[in-house]
């Protein structure tokens, strides 16, 4: 379904998406903040992002840069002291930030589903997995117990659980890590949502299983024409599974573009640093792995100017005072005063 965009301000920069696609989710100037004793934590600080129908977008960045809080803002599930104080999140003609609790309940699980990082803790230990899969369908699709059960068995089969009938009444602890994540994926896809938010879906898994799970999610999403937002810090996932990638730093977007372009020609020094810190097959034994010096800024008292200047090797006076906006460079956009021909980085 196309979003009614006539009422919103036009966002000029869309980050290299195919022009014929329509945005499914439009985040405009989102500010999510937490009130703490130390002060106001600005977890998401003016993020604008469009997600186009059918695409897989990777959202990358260090821990604490606001990736997960962006997802929780979309779901309306921010922890108690957190609030999306400004901005808009438009989805299927509604601003999710203004939806009532009841409206959000109808959207969650049915229109937007979420896959969590650690299935062992994200699934109820005292309920059989069959019941947990059926539950969402009973809530949203108003299926009876028997129908939901049949659908759940189909889903289990579809996500690659062997002998689903026998496994239906098992508890989550009786599954291996990869199988647990398959169960969670079955739950997420059960109501055929339009948008899938996957928050580090493979971080808890073995490397060999990661690829299977990513392929599964990608395959299922393509099959259903679903849009997916992958939150990750793993550039390998981005390279292998995403169409576009958005890089976040200190609650802001610093670079966005098609995966190939961003990975091969990173414009922002932060993106370059992230890519440079990925171990490469070409590095020699004994080489030190590149790391970005310093720590992410304190989100309570953000620096003026570019949020990255404290750690940036290229920073000058302008970077310390003026905050750069996203500008178009080739197919991508980056927010940096110092965009220059890309260094030779291992990608």
């Amino acid at each position: 379904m196309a979003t009614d965009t006539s009422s919103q301000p036009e966002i000029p920069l869309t980050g290299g998406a195919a022009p014929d696609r329509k945005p499914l989710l439009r985040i405009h100037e989102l500010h999510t903040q937490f009130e703490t004793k130390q002060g106001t934590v600005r977890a998401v600080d003016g993020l604008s992002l469009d997600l186009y129908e059918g695409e897989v977008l990777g959202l990358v960045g260090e821990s604490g840069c606001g990736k997960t809080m962006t997802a929780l803002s979309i779901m309306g599930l921010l922890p108690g002291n957190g609030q999306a104080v400004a901005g808009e999140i438009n989805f299927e003609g509604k601003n999710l930030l203004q939806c009532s609790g009841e409206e959000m309940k109808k959207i969650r699980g049915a229109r937007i589903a979420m896959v969590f990082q650690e299935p062992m803790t994200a699934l109820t230990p005292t309920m059989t997995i069959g019941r947990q899969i059926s539950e969402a369908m009973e809530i949203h699709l108003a299926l009876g117990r028997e129908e939901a059960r049949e659908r759940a068995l189909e889903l289990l089969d579809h996500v690659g659980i062997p002998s689903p009938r026998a496994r239906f009444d098992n508890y989550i602890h009786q599954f291996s890590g990869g199988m647990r994540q398959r169960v969670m994926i079955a739950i997420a896809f059960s109501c055929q949502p339009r948008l899938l938010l996957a928050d580090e879906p493979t971080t808890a898994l073995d490397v060999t299983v990661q690829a299977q799970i990513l392929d599964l999610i990608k395959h299922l999403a393509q099959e259903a024409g679903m849009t997916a937002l992958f939150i990750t810090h793993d550039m390998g996932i981005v390279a292998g599974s995403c169409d576009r990638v958005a890089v976040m730093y200190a609650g802001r977007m610093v670079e966005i573009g098609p995966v190939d372009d961003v990975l091969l020609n990173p414009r922002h020094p932060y993106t370059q640093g992230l890519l440079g810190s990925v171990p490469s097959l070409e590095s020699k034994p004994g080489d030190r792995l590149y790391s970005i010096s310093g720590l992410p800024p304190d989100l309570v008292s953000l620096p003026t100017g570019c949020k990255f200047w404290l750690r940036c090797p290229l920073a000058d006076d302008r970077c310390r005072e003026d905050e750069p906006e996203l500008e178009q460079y080739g197919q991508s956009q980056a927010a940096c005063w110092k965009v220059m021909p890309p260094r030779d980085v291992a990608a």
Partner: protein
Amino acid sequence: MTADAGAQHDMFAMPEQRSLWQDALEQLMRNRLAIFGVFVAFLLLFVSIFGPWLSPYDYTEQNLFRINEGPSIDHWLGTDGLGRDMLTRILHGARTAFLVGLIVTIGTTVLGVVLGAAGAFLGGWVDALVMRLADITMAFPDILLAAFISVVFREKVLELQLHLQEQYGWTISEGNRVYLDYLVIFGSLTLVQWYGKARLVRGQILSLREKEFIEAERALGASNWTIILSHLVPNSLGPLIVSITVGFGGAMLSEASLSFLGVGIQPPGASWGEMISDNLGQWRFNPHLVVMPGVVLAIVVLGFNFLGDGLNDALNPEQRRR
């Protein structure tokens, strides 16, 4: 082939959908010690209801010609120092034990769940008040505090009863005076034993509330009631049920201790603790008078503890043998 192996390997089996409770029951039935506990619990229930009709004697009936006797055809478990039939008194003691276990458990559970849940959900000063009350109660040895409360409480109950008698002419027959003792015991033990369940319930709610599966459930669009009924309650009920079962035995043991010390059930009322205390003087000459109520008490408390352990295993799917 066991049920477990079947679930793993038989691809074509169509297992019926089972709930946590059905699974738990099946698991419990496989545990011999727990079966013993169930048996003891049902036996206690039966005896406490029908006990007085099972014996030809009254529990206060004295026969001073036949005191301190050993087991015989007339008196299967012998007679005590006043010639009362031991078996009859033990059967009557079962009623006391069961009533104390039941009512004190209900009392502590209601008080504990309400206070613990209130503390966890409301937080702030309510939580602080409940937890400080629990700390204070905990700071005293249970039996000492219960004895103290029951002494104070008994006076109040007697005053109230006297007041009712004067005001409305409500009298209480000598044989029913034991129910006043019950009231005192229920009250004092409930006031002493509530904090364990309050702390348990509070801790359960606080820890479950932060669990990711609750958040995942919200992300699925489940309503608060679904979350509470299908996820919070089953995950927190297990420990509570175990605590209730073990507390049942604990309450009976506390009652026996109080009665043994002379501040619980008063003679001629029958309680196992009171019988031990009553016959303690006979210990050297007729040890069975002390041993028998003691053994019965031990078996019953043990039974409830076994049942509690069995329930603990059965209600926790993660601890099951695969």
